[in-house]
């Protein structure tokens, strides 16, 4: 069975500091991993994904994520947080060999404090 865990419901970080939003996953095969962001009253927006290749993936708005197979993690990071990064972040996983649907985590609300 596929699943995603986002252990923190809420992350607070000061503007200008580095931020990390955590994600761990469970799949039977090799994973496709995704990060999405949701602003209030909007749909989800794609940030980045890992399919294969380099473990460090760079995405939109200066975000990056590191795939760690041994720890089954795919944490989202940004070197310097902006107030405008405040939003709800979702990690998602799909088994390459399985059904085409994504399994989403429960989300982490990021608040960047000015």
């Amino acid at each position: 069975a596929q699943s995603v865990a986002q252990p923190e419901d809420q992350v607070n970080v000061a503007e200008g500091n580095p931020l990390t939003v955590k994600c761990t996953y469970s799949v039977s095969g090799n994973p496709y991993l995704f990060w999405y962001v949701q602003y209030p009253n909007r749909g989800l927006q794609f940030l980045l994904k890992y399919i294969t290749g380099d473990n460090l993936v760079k995405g939109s708005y200066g975000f990056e994520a590191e795939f760690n197979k041994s720890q089954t993690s795919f944490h989202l990071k940004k070197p310097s947080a902006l107030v405008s990064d405040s939003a709800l972040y979702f990690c998602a996983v799909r088994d390459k060999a399985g059904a085409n649907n994504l399994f989403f985590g429960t989300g982490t609300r990021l608040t960047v404090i000015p």
Partner: protein
Amino acid sequence: DAGITQSPRHKVTETGTPVTLRCHQTENHRYMYWYRQDPGHGLRLIHYSYGVKDTDKGEVSDGYSVSRSKTEDFLLTLESATSSQTSVYFCAISESLGTTKDIQYFGAGTRLSVL
């Protein structure tokens, strides 16, 4: 929102009535999805479509049906609405699977309240 229009954006209905939500895309993408978003659950897949008239169930399909008679339209029907179906519903589309274009793009959502 990537050429995806969901209608209506808001709806209030009564228990036991049928409700249809519409997703319309202008991207000509093959795959379409319906999700519901609830606090503490993230997004959960209801149904998806991999082509005209080709659909399959997701993890929370009970009480819902879908139809796709044209590439651009994917309809979600709540056959007899219940209060547990109060939620925000999102449509998503994707062009392909297992390639660099394997990305789901989401509509703005429909907020449904069942009283």
